[in-house]
Structure formats: structure tokens, C-alpha cells
């Protein structure tokens, strides 16, 4: 007897109803479900009595690639309904898709994503024909909203149309060939009893065709073996509607699980009113006014839209459109999220954000206590034993010693996974002193096991899980550059300086959103240090850090060009950001392929632009000079000779290229013109007393960049210029008694203390 093929969209209540009805009517011998075939021996684990949603989590890792994939199941998933309905009629369930570790699924993190998304042309045309915004609205319009009469035929026609126009890629073809083997075997084994096949609708036309070939054998197909040296497996993990809704791009499936859960339980009409209620409740919780008049208007508009669009009851977007029309009375900054697909954009109207949250729902699944534990739990126990860390109490580690470094890395990996009972009291810190030892505090904690089970979703081994957690922290970062540097530092501490490829894009995105030069420059300097030097943590020349260096240099230059303003006290943050870029160009430029030309052009523009603050102008000049471009600092100094400008300009210059001051021999008649020192000497000597006092604080700051030995050289040159023969060192000595200085310092400290005590100044700043 030929098999019955039910092509579904994953997570569609309408399809789930169809699956239930088909199985109940046919009472098949076998129900074949698109799912990881490696889980076939453990189908019973799924039926232990979990609270949905749950997911089958599969992981794979070998030397070259690593991936984690989820097959999420909720109450209205056609796959889940197939499992339970099969159990009721006594049919045997078989998962028939390739395991997640197979190369055909290498780039998939959501097995139940919409396959047809990758073949978008037909969908675009259908959307145009039915005048809807996107595939989700189209789906509601065609399948979720109308009666179930003829649903199977409509679904088949829809997927035939989409599949008819698309050539499936190699990966899909491999999966379909494998699934078809299962179908043929099942049909052969079932004899004259029916077989029901539940797969993604996109695969249905191909499966129908492939399964028509006669079976060569009646045996079940073999499970593709894991390659040698690779790790892989599948476990059940608790899942949540939020995560289900968070897949993006090609990984995304049907959105709005909270809403469709209601559709499944209560039907379309109640789901619509439930959606309105939960949006209103959320808004009122947030102290937003939602008047009865608004609700009436929303309902009227939703009803009108449903009639216009030919729906029996208001569908998802009818309700949302009605609510938006009634509740939003100003211009939106971003398009409504349900008219596009993808994540919420920043700047989305708060009312709309609440609507999307109401659609998502906040149901969280829970595993039955008898479920087997994820491998991470065992791996962590083994790792702790191997490194003799299964102890409690304080622990001191010497990072320069090999066994202690490995132990520190294990503890750091636990720390980034947020496992309780592991606390670091001191150790190397981002931007802090280069410590070589660490102090830890290990304590037993009741929550450790549950935290480990949850962290199990990140990966099967401690290394994988920590890597995945770090990856997530980078990709979840929205523009906090300090936090980004901290993650990369954590990665170095974990001994995992090379995060995944996709992290590099996330770094570039995050850096691209940074808007403050100071923190960005600081992060660049720190990371450049890690990249250049850190052999202790093994992060030298790590490509992940390289990615940050590359994007941060571009971003610093971009931000630097946007700064305008008159004379102002030098901003050391932005000056050191330019210095960090210069260092990156000097030390990493060649290896990372950084462009030199554009930065130099920019520096040239900044240096001569009078609307740029003086410190930045000076820094730009120093930038060019220290990269070996010829310039005329003495001429530029004459241009910046105003008392309120000079010191700040010099601060910028000296921060990047203080050697300029001591260049040249200072002899009169030098063909290169007077030296910078000569120009400065001349300028300062001709200042009136008032001008000098105006210029003094900034000048002090500028000359603070010179170490004592170079100050002495400056002093000698000045004496030479005047033809005075005396000790240069004497000029640097303070001529007041040391006791007086000590008294002054003490007085200052007392004033600070008083001010801090009264809350008038920040304690840390005064320190």
C-alpha cells in the first residue's frame, strides 16, 4: 500500500490538525517523521511527560567545524502531534532525516526552519498575487484562517508550486534521498497496512517522486556513521517560545509561537481576542493608557481588515494592524516588524515591542526528571576530577606553571557559563596590572546541577559550551565596546582566543555602532596588546582579536573626522585613540592588511582644519609624522601659537610624536628652517605674563609626556640656545624645600577628603 505524504510547515497548527486527522483516519503501521534518525532508539524519551516546548539538541565537532542544531517541538508542532497521535493508534514512529552532524545539515541551527525561504522567487510572486506583505501573512491567509476543508489539497498545491520552480540544492537532495529510503523500507515492511509520512512540505513533491521507485531492500536504512575523531550526539533540552521565535534569516521558521499556541488550544477567534487582551495587559502593566475607545477602534479596524482580506475571523496581522492603527498616534521610526521578517530593529515603537512580545509568549519548557542528562554535566565532572578541582575552599594558581594554567582555564570556562560556586577573587584583569597569579574560591552550590543542564544546550563539552557562550555574548552585544573587549579578554583567559567566524562579523557590527572615541581607543589599545604580546594566555596573533583591531581602526578614523569645535581642554581619550590606531598600523598593519593611505589623508585633513579642536589637530600631525610622513611641525606650531590653543595642540602632538621636539640639531641656519623647539621657545618668550598664565596648565600637561631624561635634553638645548653654560639638571629641580611640598600635598589630600566626605567630589577621581 503506498504511503500517505503529509507536507507540513513546521510549527503550523493547521498542519498539526491535518496530521492528527490523517493518522486517526488511517491507523497506520508506521508514522515517519522528519527528525534526526540517530534519535530513533530513544523516541520513548520524548514521551516521558515533559512540559513543552522542548527540543532535540544535536551537536557535532571535529577539527574543522562545529555546529549545534535544535529540533524544537511544541504542542502544536505537526511533528509532535504525529508522535502523540501515533502512540494513540499504536503506530511505530521513525525519525527519517539525516542526523544533525551530517554535512547536509552543517549550516543549519534550526532543523524546522522554513526550507522554502531559501527559494524565495515563487513566494515573492505569490505574495504579490495575494497582495500580502510576506510569507507569514500569506501562510495565515491561505492555511491558518480558512476552514480545514480541502486543506491537504491546498497544501500540496502550494508546495508543488514552490518546489516546481526551485531546484533544490545538494544538501536538500541528499536529505530527500535518505528520507525516501526510509519511506520505501517502511512501505515494504508494512505490507498492506498504511504508512503516514510527515515532512516539510518543501520536501514532499520530491519524496513522492523518489518513493515511487521500487525498494531495493526491505531493511531500514543505515545511520550515517560519525567521521573518525569527531564528536556528536543528540539530547533533549528544555526550550522556550522566546528562543523559538529568535531564529533569524534562513534559520527562521513560523514566528509568534505564543499566538499559535492559543490558535491550537482555543481556535482562531479566541486567539485573536486573547492577543488583544495580552497586549492590553502588557501595556497597562507598563502604565500605558489604553482607553476603551481605543479598544473599540482597534476591534472595528481589525474586523474591517479581516472582511477586506476575506478572513472568517481576524487573523494575526488583522488584529495587530487594528491595534497599531488605534494605539499609535505618531510617526514610526521603523517599519512594523510583522510587515518584514527578522528581528526587532532598534527604535521600534514601545507599543509595537509589547505586541511582538505578546505574540512570542513566554512559555518555558521543562524536562521530566527521568530524562537523561546532557553530556556537558558528565564532561564537567570529568574535567574537574582530571584537574583536581573537585574540592572546595580557596585556591591559588600560578599562571606561569602549565598545570595551573590549565586549571585556571577550566575554572574560567565554568565562570563564563555562569555556573554557580566558582568565584575568582583576584587575577589578571582587563587593562589592569599584569598579574601572574589568581585566587579562586570554590564552594558547593545547590543550583549547580540545574545550571549545568541548561548550559548543556551550549555544547556537549566544557570547551564547546564555553566557546558557544562567548560567541553568544559577542553576537548579543549591541554597541558596548568595553563589554566587547571584556568578552575577548575572557576568551583569552579561557584559553579560547579564537571564537567562531560569525563572531568576527558581530565584532565588526558592534564596533561599527560605537560612538565614543575614548572607550573605543582604549579597547583597541588593550586588544592590540593582547594580539601582539600575549603568549601567556596564548592570544598572540589571534584572528578574532585581529577582527576587532581591523574594524576598530576604521571606526576610530570615522569618528575622528566627525569631531569639530573650538579650543577646549585636551581630551586624552581621543588623542590616545589616534595613538592606538597608529600603533595598530605600525605593528599589525602588514599582517592584517590595514590601509595606510586613507588614514594618512584623514590625518592631513584634520591637521590643517581650523574647525577641529587643537588637541586632535596636533594628534593628527603627530600621527602622520610618526608614520614617517614628512611634515612641518614648526610651521604648524606657529599656526597654533595662540595661548589658549598651544598647550592643547602640543598635548596631541606629543602624545603621538614627542620625538619631533628633539629632532634637528637646533643650529641657526639649518636648511630645514627653525626647529620646533626654537619656534616654541620664541613663542613662549614673547608671551605676556597674562598669556603665559593662560597657556601654562595645558603646556604642563603637554610636556608631561616627556620622561625626565628627555626633559633634561630639552633644558640643555634651551640653555645652548641662549649661550648659557650651566647644569641642565638644575633647571629641572624644584627650588622649594621638600617639607613645603609635603605640606602642600597633605593639605590637598585633606581638602579632597573633606570635599569627598561632603559628597562634593567623586572619591575615585580625587584618589
Amino acid at each position, binding site marked *: 500500500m503506498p504511503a500517505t505524504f503529509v507536507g507540513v510547515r513546521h510549527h503550523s497548527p493547521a498542519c498539526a490538525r491535518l496530521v492528527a486527522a490523517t493518522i486517526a483516519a488511517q491507523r497506520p503501521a508506521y508514522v515517519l517523521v522528519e527528525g534526526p534518525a540517530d534519535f530513533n532508539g530513544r523516541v520513548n524519551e520524548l514521551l516521558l511527560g515533559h512540559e513543552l516546548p522542548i527540543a532535540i539538541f544535536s551537536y557535532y565537532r571535529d577539527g574543522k567545524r562545529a555546529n549545534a542544531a535544535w529540533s524544537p517541538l511544541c504542542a502544536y508542532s505537526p511533528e509532535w502531534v504525529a508522535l502523540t497521535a501515533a502512540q494513540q493508534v499504536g503506530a511505530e514512529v521513525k525519525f527519517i532525516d539525516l542526523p544533525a552532524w551530517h554535512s547536509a545539515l552543517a549550516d543549519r541551527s534550526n532543523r524546522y526552519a522554513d526550507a522554502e525561504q531559501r527559494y524565495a522567487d515563487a513566494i515573492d510572486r505569490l505574495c504579490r*498575487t495575494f*497582495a*500580502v*506583505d510576506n510569507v507569514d*501573512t500569506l501562510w495565515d491567509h491561505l492555511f491558518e484562517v480558512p476552514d480545514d476543508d480541502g486543506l491537504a489539497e491546498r497544501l500540496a498545491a502550494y508546495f508543488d508550486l514552490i518546489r516546481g520552480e526551485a531546484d533544490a540544492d545538494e544538501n536538500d537532495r541528499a536529505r530527500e534521498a535518505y528520507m525516501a529510503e526510509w519511506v520505501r523500507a517502511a512501505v515494504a515492511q508494512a505490507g498492506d497496512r498504511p504508512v503516514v509520512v510527515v515532512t516539510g512540505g518543501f520536501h514532499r513533491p520530491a519524496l513522492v517522486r523518489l518513493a515511487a521507485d521500487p525498494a531495493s531492500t526491505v531493511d531500514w536504512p543505515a545511520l550515517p556513521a560519525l567521521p573518525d575523531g569527531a564528536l556528536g550526539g543528540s539530547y533533549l533540552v528544555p526550550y522556550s517560545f522566546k528562543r523559538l521565535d529568535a531564529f533569524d534569516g534562513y534559520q527562521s521558521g513560523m514566528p509568534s509561537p505564543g499566538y499559535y499556541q492559543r490558535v491550537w488550544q482555543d481556535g482562531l477567534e479566541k486567539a485573536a481576542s486573547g492577543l488583544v487582551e495580552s497586549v492590553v495587559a502588557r501595556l497597562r502593566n507598563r502604565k500605558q493608557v489604553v482607553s476603551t475607545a481605543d479598544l473599540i*477602534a482597534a476591534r*472595528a*479596524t481589525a474586523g*474591517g*481588515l479581516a*472582511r*477586506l*482580506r476575506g478572513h472568517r475571523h481576524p487573523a494575526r*496581522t488583522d488584529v495587530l*494592524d487594528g491595534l*497599531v*492603527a*488605534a494605539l*499609535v*498616534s*505618531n*510617526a*514610526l521610526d521603523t*517599519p*512594523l516588524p510583522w*510587515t*518584514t521578517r527578522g528581528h526587532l530593529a532598534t527604535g521600534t515603537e514601545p507599543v509595537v515591542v509589547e505586541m511582538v512580545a505578546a505574540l512570542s509568549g513566554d512559555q518555558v519548557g521543562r524536562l521530566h526528571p527521568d530524562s537523561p542528562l546532557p553530556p556537558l554535566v558528565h564532561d564537567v565532572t570529568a574535567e574537574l576530577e582530571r584537574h583536581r578541582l573537585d574540592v572546595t575552599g580557596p585556591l591559588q594558581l600560578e599562571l606561569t606553571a602549565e598545570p595551573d594554567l590549565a586549571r585556571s582555564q577550566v575554572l574560567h570556562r565554568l565562570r563564563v557559563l555562569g555556573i554557580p560556586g566558582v568565584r575568582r577573587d583576584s587575577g589578571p584583569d582587563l587593562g589592569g596590572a599584569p598579574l601572574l597569579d589568581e585566587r579562586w574560591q570554590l564552594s558547593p552550590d545547590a543550583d549547580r546541577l540545574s545550571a549545568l543542564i541548561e548550559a548543556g544546550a551550549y555544547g556537549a563539552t566544557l570547551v564547546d559550551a564555553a566557546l558557544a557562550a562567548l560567541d553568544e555574548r559577542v553576537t548579543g552585544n549591541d554597541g558596548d565596546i568595553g563589554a566587547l573587549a571584556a568578552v575577548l579578554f575572557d576568551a583569552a583567559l579561557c584559553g579560547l582566543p579564537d571564537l567562531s567566524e560569525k563572531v568576527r*562579523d558581530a565584532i*565588526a*557590527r558592534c564596533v*561599527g*555602532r560605537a560612538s565614543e572615541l575614548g572607550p573605543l581607543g582604549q579597547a583597541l589599545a588593550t586588544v592590540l596588546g593582547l594580539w601582539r604580546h600575549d603568549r601567556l594566555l596564548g592570544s598572540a596573533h589571534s584572528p578574532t582579536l585581529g577582527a576587532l583591531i581591523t*574594524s576598530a581602526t*576604521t571606526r576610530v*578614523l*570615522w569618528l575622528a*573626522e*566627525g569631531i*569639530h569645535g573650538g579650543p577646549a581642554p585636551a581630551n586624552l581619550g581621543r588623542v590616545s585613540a589616534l595613538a592606538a590606531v597608529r600603533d595598530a598600523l605600525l605593528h599589525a598593519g602588514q599582517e592584517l592588511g590595514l*590601509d595606510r593611505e*586613507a588614514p594618512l*589623508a*584623514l590625518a592631513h585633513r584634520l591637521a590643517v582644519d581650523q574647525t577641529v579642536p587643537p588637541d586632535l589637530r596636533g594628534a593628527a600631525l603627530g600621527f602622520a609624522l610618526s608614520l614617517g610622513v614628512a611634515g612641518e611641525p614648526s610651521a604648524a606650531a606657529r599656526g597654533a601659537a595662540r595661548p589658549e590653543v598651544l598647550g592643547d595642540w602640543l598635548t596631541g602632538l606629543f602624545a603621538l610624536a614627542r620625538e619631533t621636539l628633539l629632532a634637528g640639531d637646533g643650529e641657526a641656519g639649518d636648511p630645514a628652517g627653525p626647529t620646533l623647539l626654537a619656534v616654541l621657545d620664541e613663542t613662549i618668550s614673547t608671551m605676556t605674563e597674562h598669556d603665559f598664565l593662560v597657556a601654562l596648565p595645558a603646556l604642563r600637561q603637554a610636556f608631561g609626556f616627556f620622561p625626565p631624561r628627555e626633559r633634561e635634553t630639552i633644558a640643555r638645548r634651551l640653555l645652548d640656545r641662549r649661550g648659557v653654560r650651566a647644569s641642565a639638571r638644575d633647571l629641572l629641580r624644584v627650588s622649594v624645600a621638600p617639607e613645603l611640598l609635603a605640606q602642600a600635598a597633605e593639605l590637598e589630600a585633606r581638602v579632597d577628603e573633606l570635599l569627598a566626605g561632603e559628597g562634593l567630589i567623586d572619591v575615585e577621581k580625587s584618589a
Partner: protein
Amino acid sequence: MTDHKLQRPPAEIRFADELARLRETDTGARPPGWQLSLDAARRFIIGDQKADISRKFVGDPSLIDRALVTLATSRGLMLVGEPGTAKSLLSELLATAISGDSTLTIQGGAATTEDQIKYSWNYALLVAEGPSTRSLVPAPMLRGMAEGKVVRFEEITRCPLEVQDSMLSLLSDRVLAVPELTGAESMVFAREGFNVIATANTRDRGVNEMSAALKRRFNFETVFPISDFTIELDLVESEASALLARSGVTTPPSRDVLEVLVTTFRELRSGVTEHGATMDRLSTVMSTAEAVSVAHAVGLRGWFLRGEAGTPADIVECLAGTAAKDNAEDLARVRRYLEQQVPKKKGPQWRAFHAARHALPG
């Protein structure tokens, strides 16, 4: 009226044929006072290939749905968005579809007065005969209410607040009093089919804020720039080709050059490059309409200066005038874009674009 003499005939003349066909085949229920059913009105605007109805507005179909349903209720429709997002075109199409007449238009501005909204007088007749329906000169609101038609109020936020407020009672009570007349003629009650479509620029918010009372009487719909690159490129190509043909240029614009132009506009508009890097958005509007006019200018330069279709270098020359206007900061942003973002893109046209960066003045 013979339309081929008009520079820009109104929609009801341009699409008279389509409207007639839609009306003939329209079987849906019409809201009272409407010339078309909601469904036919929707097809008139977003097109219907089978019935040979052209697509007149590029954007989310759900926007049209919401707009039509709003107009069928007692609330007015407020179209807001950046300049150049085809708000006025949409309001013209909606009025045409619903009332068959898009000419009841009030153009808002600092000098708009109540007279231009409600009614004024023919003073010669007023002096000769006294106030009467003969000496009354109806303005769009009066006509719209009396005839049951949709009235368009363009750029409502450019009007002074007190003028905006004169709309309040008209919208809530749906009656316009003409106290100078007596008897039944002194009250003009709105007939079925009357409603108001207002448009407002989000960039003009600073000119005049809208009162909360007026806001309550409107449903807001934000019109966004076209989100799909290909659609925007196609639109710019077809519009620019039509403009160039009208200016006597016989070479169509080169697709590569337009691609550079549209990408540049989209990236400067959104502040995000296709590689995901963020940058400062321009303070000037980078609308599709502006892109069309730049494409037009590029084509003109290429043809009349050198006898060819225009090059990426022409875009650079034109950008200073359109993108930066006279804003020095925007000019700097454009320069940074040319210098730092453009080299990351691949293709000879982008290289030419980058090479021409020095043509940017200043």
C-alpha cells in the same frame, strides 16, 4: 479636458480607463458614498496583473489595507513619513479610488487660512446681493462635505496651530456652519463618503506640532522608504528613463551607475552599509525621489557634456548638490563615505566612484 496637453493630469484622468473597468467589474459591497468597493480600491492602487491594472504604489500592501479601512470608518487618515516617500501620490490615489476625484486638495503652509479650508465670498456678488449660495465660494472642505468626497490636506503640520484647530469640529461633528446664510443653507452636513486624508513630513515636526485633539481624530500611517533594493532600483531606473526621454536624451541610464547611486542613497539614508557597518545618517533627506532626480541629472550631464550615459564620477558631482545641500557636516559625511566605505565594495563602477571622490567640492 484633453489630457495630453496637461503637464501632469490628475490620477482620475491618467487612470480613467482602469477606473472605468474596475467600476464595471466591481461586485463587492461599497461603503456608503464610495465609488469602488474596498477590494477594488485596493486593486486600483497595488495593481492586479490579471485585470491589467498597473501597480501605482510600491510598498507594503498591508499599508493600503489599513488606510482604506481607516477611511471607511469615522477617523481621518494621517500619512506621515520622510519627504519623498510618495505620501502625496498615495493620498491622490486613495482619493481617486474612493471618490473618483483627487482635486479637493488643501495645500498647507504658513499662509494657509480658514478661508482656503472652508469657504470664502465672491465680494462683488456679496456686495450686490448679500450673502447667498450664489456669492459663496466653497473651499475643498465645504465641497467635500456637501458632495460626500474625500478631501486631501497636504502638509498639515506646516499650517499654524489655530488653522489646524479649525478642522476639529468639522471632523468630530461632521457639520460646517455658514453663519452668514440663513435657514437650512446655514448648516452643511457631511454626506456619506466624506473623509480627510492628511499628510505630514516627519522632518517638519519642528515647524508646527500637531495638537493632541487633532491627533485623536486621525489614524496614523507611516510611509517608509522602499525597503527592497531591487524594487527601488527598478523604480529609479524606470522613472529616470522616462524623465531623460522627456529631456531629449536618447541613451538610457546605465544599470551599473544606477546601482551605485541607489546603493549610496540607501546606505546614507539608513546609516548602515550592506556589510553591516554603521555610520552617521545624513541630515538631508535621501529619498527615492531625490535619487531619481540625481539619476536624471547624471544622465543629462553624460549626454549633453560627453554624449554618453553618465558615469559614477557624475554621481559624485551631483551628490554635493543633492545630498549635502549647503550643509558642511553632511558634505563631510559624504566624503567619509566615499573614502572609507566605498573602497570595500567590488566592481569597476565602485572603483570609478571611489576614484572620482576628489570631485566632491570643499
